[in-house]
């Protein structure tokens, strides 16, 4: 690891000023992504601002919905009684990620900000626009089995690896942040970005902004399922994952929420497919039709062509399991 300066911050204000003073500073929460990348010299911050002593761990129900502090652990959120009962998509998605040990370290804020697992991003001997802007994208014509089928550009075809993000976008969550210029709330839909010609930017968060919480509006979804397809049954990143939530009145779909992971540079909400389901009776045909709509505009890059078939099948399967037909 390259040398850095370590600051243990005791207040939100001190943390934000410590990050603002140093251009190459980073917050550290669980450390499970940042330290991994620092050991490999993929990220080389000169200052680490440890935020673990800040009081941002609370999970509470509010009349508008749910508030989850940025430092709440992935395991705590996944086991939280209210979340298991009222937001099962989030609990299921978190439990599908990483391992029990990592979930005991990983925080909600860190999970939101985790970087791609593109092997070239990790390999400092290869070109990568995300790691070193302007050097090129090794995955475009390289080994791209894990890569995007939606919203990619020749600058970068990487995917966002998080399971939690897929559930959060399906649940219409928002991210609360605080920075030197004040506080703001960012909709999950807008938080992560597509690569465009600036793949070095994963999100619209400013370098000096601290995530303080995630909020989720009260959910009306009666039938939920998070389905993650991966190379082994556990402890592996998604090839494709689907968060499916339905509000069913008998067999009629009143509300549908669908999002996919492992397919784009950001968690991928399937709005058109959701609309196609609204008002319909639950049936394989309706699910198949929604999946076809969801796949419009998808593009494979060679090794990941299998996702063009796996993704719609996963959508149908997730909806089947959620609606129990």
């Amino acid at each position, binding site marked *: 690891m390259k040398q850095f300066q370590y600051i243990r911050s005791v207040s939100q204000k001190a943390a934000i000023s410590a990050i603002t003073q140093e251009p190459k500073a980073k917050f550290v929460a669980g450390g499970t992504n940042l330290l991994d990348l620092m050991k490999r010299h993929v990220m080389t911050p000169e200052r680490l601002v440890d935020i673990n002593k800040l009081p941002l761990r609370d999970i509470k129900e509010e009349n508008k919905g749910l508030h989850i502090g940025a430092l709440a652990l992935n395991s705590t959120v996944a086991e939280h009684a209210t979340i298991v009962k009222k937001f099962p998509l989030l609990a299921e998605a978190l439990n599908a990620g990483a391992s*029990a040990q990592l979930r005991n370290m990983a925080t909600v804020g860190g999970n939101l900000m985790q970087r791609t697992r593109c092997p070239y991003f990790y390999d400092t001997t290869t070109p990568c626009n995300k790691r070193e802007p302007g050097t090129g994208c090794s995955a475009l014509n390289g080994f791209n089995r894990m890569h995007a089928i939606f919203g990619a550009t020749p600058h970068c075809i990487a995917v966002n690896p998080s399971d939690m993000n897929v559930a959060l976008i399906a649940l219409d969550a928002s991210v609360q942040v605080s920075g030197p210029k004040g506080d703001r709330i960012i909709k999950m839909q807008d938080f992560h970005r597509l690569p465009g010609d600036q793949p070095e930017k994963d999100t619209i968060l400013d370098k000096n902004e601290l995530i303080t919480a995630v909020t989720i509006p009260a959910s009306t979804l009666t039938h939920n399922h998070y389905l993650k397809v991966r190379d082994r049954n556990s402890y592996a990143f998604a090839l494709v994952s689907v968060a499916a939530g339905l509000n069913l009145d008998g067999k009629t779909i009143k509300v549908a929420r669908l999002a996919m992971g492992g397919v784009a540079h950001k968690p991928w909400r399937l709005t058109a497919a959701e609309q196609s389901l609204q008002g319909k009776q639950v049936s394989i045909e309706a699910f198949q039709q929604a999946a076809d709509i969801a796949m419009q505009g998808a593009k494979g890059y060679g090794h990941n062509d299998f996702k063009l078939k796996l993704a719609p099948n996963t959508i149908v399967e997730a909806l089947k399991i959620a609606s129990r037909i």
Partner: protein
Amino acid sequence: MEKENATPNPRRDFLKKSSLITAVALTPTAAIKAADNQLDERIAQAIENVPCSIEINGTKHTMKIDPRITLLDLLRERLHLTGTKKGCDYGQCGACTVHVDGQRVNSCLTLAVMNDGKKVTTIEGLANGSELHPMQAAFIKHDGFQCGYCTPGQIMSAVACIREGHADNEGEIREFMSGNICRCGAYPNIVAAIQEVKKGGKNI
């Protein structure tokens, strides 16, 4: 001296920046002096060390350490508690599993200084004197290992798995033990050992 001054010195820049903030316990003037005098790495390093106090297996350790040292390296290299193993050093194998404030974590992906004020239990702290912990005894009884390299991590993880309430059946045990890889493939015997301890119903 002339020659050295001609090339930019990152350490010196770094130390100068360090001195601008006060949150780390270092003496700014000493740090600047060290940088200006081009003192050797070791001395400069000592100045940048961060104070930190961690209770490990019941003993409190108060020290000043390089912030780059992971909890795993602190245990193995500094405190010579080599029971905890380094398999991958990247969070992928579970060999380094220890308990921090009662929760199982990968000690390779946390900095020692981030564990200030915490209580750490390693495999060395599990037995009660010469009496093996029930999980250790069960691993021996069920042949829950071959080469033994993953075993300390498996045992620490297994104890936590039961304490968390994630050992109700084989499927759940396999899922919640998936963060511990066994290159020798002792999985069936590991599951059997955990099931026996769980069925024994002891408060472990």
